[in-house]
């Protein structure tokens, strides 16, 4: 048995203990710590408190508290174990059918931009580069039918379930024919079964294209990174010319022509890097909120260490960046503490680190028994179809580990091999981790050239992020119990004395 807790201090200096077995954050004290240490040392036997100056009533109560949480909830300590064996290949294929929630279609590898950070820019290992390849409408419809067949077990059990259907590229609007064919087929054959989504660079949002998206109520995510100095630094045409002006013009027209669609179905997904002036970008989104749709999520590029772990990059010129990260997080924390306003960019940036904590699994949440830890999805949960019909386990991984092909279906042996490796290289070390419920490590970060890369750094970064999120969280909640952060108990959390 190993203790799996994290102790942090709030901004006021008050101690808290995060217990990874229950996912609960407990007010902590020297007395509780002494009793828990004694308990850990004594195993399952009654602990002997080591604080003779404490009130006997408090000692008895706190001893009972520690013992009861240990006995009732199995809190504080986890035994080393091993996950359930990975199921057979056939069983895994069936599991994909029973769990998959989203079909991603890479309808083209072509793009009219040459964004410098793009995953297909040639700057990254094991990924393809831009090409002129497009998915034929026939193949796109074949992929749709194949997926509907794959999820048939879920459809039988859960008639009302809605699945994701996402169009990717390249720039997907370079292949409107395939998109139109799929959307029409959904309308004709599978009405209500899918919630379509598209991610676009925003330059090809012509009236005709927008009309198609509005007609089918496609949720539209536009990549826009901020003001011209930021956006046009990376998102450029082959000539080097920036793309922001055109994107903003398109957004203005959409809002004018389709205001309800703009408000209800559109969002943005900015990215940033070590050279981003985060503060001025946040100001841009605040000032242009009447044109630029709300920021849903934010992504860092080429900055995995900074994004996940907050590594100090001052030695290579990242000090200013680290400073603006701190400023934005402070703005987020202040707004949460005072129930104040902030830009959607600031909120999304603040949530980037907090989300693992806010959406952590709790006491009775259960994972697949052969994947008890990590932030990994079951491969195929968001199955992605390439232009040539090859299947990837999701849209975020590189192209080094396909899991099948449209014509041959999901390859259970490939998934089994990946999961076997995951158990050996990753999950075996999770039993002693105190932050498994906040884990951010997933295949998108760890898949190298057809195998998992060394994960120690990823794990450490994930744990550092968890600790920092905990510190910020308890600091905010201690000051403002009604802060809009506590999502697990909408009725009770953070509302002591407030009445129900």
């Amino acid at each position, binding site marked *: 048995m190993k203790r799996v807790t994290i102790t942090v201090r709030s901004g006021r200096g008050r101690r808290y203990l995060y217990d990874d077995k229950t996912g609960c954050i407990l*007010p902590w004290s020297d007395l509780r710590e002494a009793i828990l240490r004694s308990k850990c040392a004594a195993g399952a036997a009654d602990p002997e408190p080591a604080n003779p100056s404490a009130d006997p*009533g408090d000692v008895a*109560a706190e001893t009972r508290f520690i013992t009861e949480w240990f006995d009732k909830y199995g809190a504080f300590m986890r035994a080393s174990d091993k996950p359930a064996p990975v199921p057979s290949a056939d069983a895994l294929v069936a599991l994909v059918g029973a769990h998959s929630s989203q079909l991603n279609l890479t309808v083209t590898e072509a793009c009219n931009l040459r964004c410098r950070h793009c995953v297909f820019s040639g700057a990254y290992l094991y990924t393809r580069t831009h090409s002129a390849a497009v998915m034929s409408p026939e193949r796109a419809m074949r992929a749709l039918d194949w997926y509907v067949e794959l999820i048939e077990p879920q459809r039988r059990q859960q008639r009302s379930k809605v699945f994701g259907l996402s169009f990717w590229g390249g720039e997907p609007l370079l292949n409107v024919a395939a998109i139109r064919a799929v959307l029409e087929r959904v309308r004709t054959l599978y009405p209500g079964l899918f919630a379509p989504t598209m991610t676009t660079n925003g330059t090809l949002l012509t009236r005709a294209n927008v009309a198609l998206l509005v007609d089918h109520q496609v949720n539209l995510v536009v990549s826009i990174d901020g003001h011209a100095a930021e956006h046009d630094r990376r998102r450029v045409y082959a000539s080097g010319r920036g793309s922001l002006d055109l994107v903003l013009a398109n957004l203005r027209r959409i809002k004018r022509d389709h205001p309800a669609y703009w408000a209800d179905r559109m969002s943005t997904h900015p990215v940033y890097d070590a050279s981003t002036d985060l503060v001025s970008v946040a100001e841009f989104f605040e000032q242009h909120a009447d044109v630029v749709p709300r920021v849903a999520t934010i992504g860092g590029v080429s900055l995995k260490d900074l994004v996940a772990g907050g590594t100090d990059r001052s030695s290579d010129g990242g000090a200013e960046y680290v400073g603006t990260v701190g400023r934005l997080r402070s703005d987020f924390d202040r707004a949460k503490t005072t129930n104040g306003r902030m830009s959607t960019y600031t909120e999304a940036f603040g949530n980037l680190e907090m989300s693992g904590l806010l959406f952590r699994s709790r006491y009775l949440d259960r994972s697949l028994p052969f994947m008890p830890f990590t932030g990994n999805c079951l491969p195929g949960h968001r199955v992605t179809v390439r232009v040539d019909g090859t299947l990837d386990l999701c849209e975020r991984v590189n192209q080094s580990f396909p899991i099948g092909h449209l014509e041959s279906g999901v390859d259970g042996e490939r998934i089994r091999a990946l999961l076997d490796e995951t158990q050996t290289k990753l999950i075996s070390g999770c039993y002693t981790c105190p932050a498994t419920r906040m884990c951010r490590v997933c295949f998108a970060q760890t898949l190298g050239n057809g195998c998992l890369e060394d994960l120690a750094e990823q794990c450490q970064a994930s744990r550092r992020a968890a600790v920092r999120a905990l510190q910020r969280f308890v600091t905010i909640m201690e000051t403002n119990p009604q802060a809009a952060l506590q999502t*697990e108990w909408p009725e009770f959390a953070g509302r002591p004395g407030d009445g129900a």
Partner: protein
Amino acid sequence: MPMSMRRYFRLASDCILVQDGKNGVIYAVSEGRIYLLDHAAYQLVSRAERNEPLDESSIGTHGRRLFEWLRDNSLGFFDDEPAYVDRLSAFGATAALGMDPRAPLIMHQVDWTITSRCARSCAFCPRGPATVVSQACMTCVRQRGTSESTNPVANLASRLDEVVDLGTRVLHIRGGDPFAVWDRLTTLVQAASSKFGLAVTTPGLGRSEDEIAAFSAANGLRLNLVILADDIADALADGPSDIFSRQMSVLDALAREQVSFGVTCIVSSNTARETEPLTQFIAARWNTTPAFSEVFEASATGSATASVFAAKKQLTGWNSLGEWFIRSHRNKCLFGRCELGLDGRIHPCAGLDACGKAAGDDRLAPVIAASELRDWWMGPSERLKGCSKCNLRYGCHPCTAAALHTAENGRPQCCPLDPADEIEPAALPWRSADSVRTIRLETSTS
């Protein structure tokens, strides 16, 4: 250590203070127990939960003793400084908030009413909307009258396929007395036995005891036999009536054939106060604990019904953190279920009005996917105005059908717990003594 050195007190992470603005109740989640606070105790606990500092000069000796009692019973802790208390949660945010719009609505059980015929003619039974039944899902009461113009199993194959599509595990056949329509029952059982677990609720009078026992054993049915508590009371006083004798014979035969069965007692104003002898009688003879269902008039707010409620005032604990979670966030009833009524329409449960369109137009899946039924099962447990401010709402009797049945403009017209009764409930002899305790500041804790 003097109180001045420990100025703060907070409830434990697995205890929840639920308030209605004037009163409060502590739900000790891990214990499955409810602590009713009198007004003075509530005021003090409420102050503490607001992170207000407490010292003996302001809370007095009784206050100190109250907090020490709470501490000594694992309900809270003293502290030197204000604290944020994260409440123990069963499930993560996505599940807790129902944030996943794709979450399916699975009907674990479908009730299928196949007849209104019955050999009995109970005075309360065919009276339609005037009759309210608590836990109607467990009784054979014909709330929608005795009309039976069509055969409800005529399009059996298509309806069974629809039920299969809902993810249903249990098909509950009910009436009237399903044994009174033998052909329908056998047809349905034969078609459905390979697809579902089957349960039948019946007064057990439509066939002989040997036929019922043999048929149930052969088809793996679970029988729920409905008995009037008045009949048992009469039997205990004067010997069994002819009808009750026949029902006893059926139960004896079921026990002899080792058929899985349960007993539901319908209580009245005569018997609601004294259910213990009924429980003992049934437990002694058939080694099972009966469930109790209650029948009353929808319009009745007068003395007769009030006396039943006063005696009932049933608060219940919960058996697990998961059960607490569901009760506090979702419909009180722990199942996903609906009823396919004799009127051909779909009802959230046997005690409630239909959802969907006119008879004959309803197909199960679209109706169940529609917002009306979805809201009923997936919506918060506070849809009733009268209930949303009641501090007893998470411990009240699990069946909300009765309250909803009598609701006008979202406010129940009658309630077994009488939410307007602010202080007195704590002084009344609650039936669920094991899971409910009272804390009074003025005298002593108990």
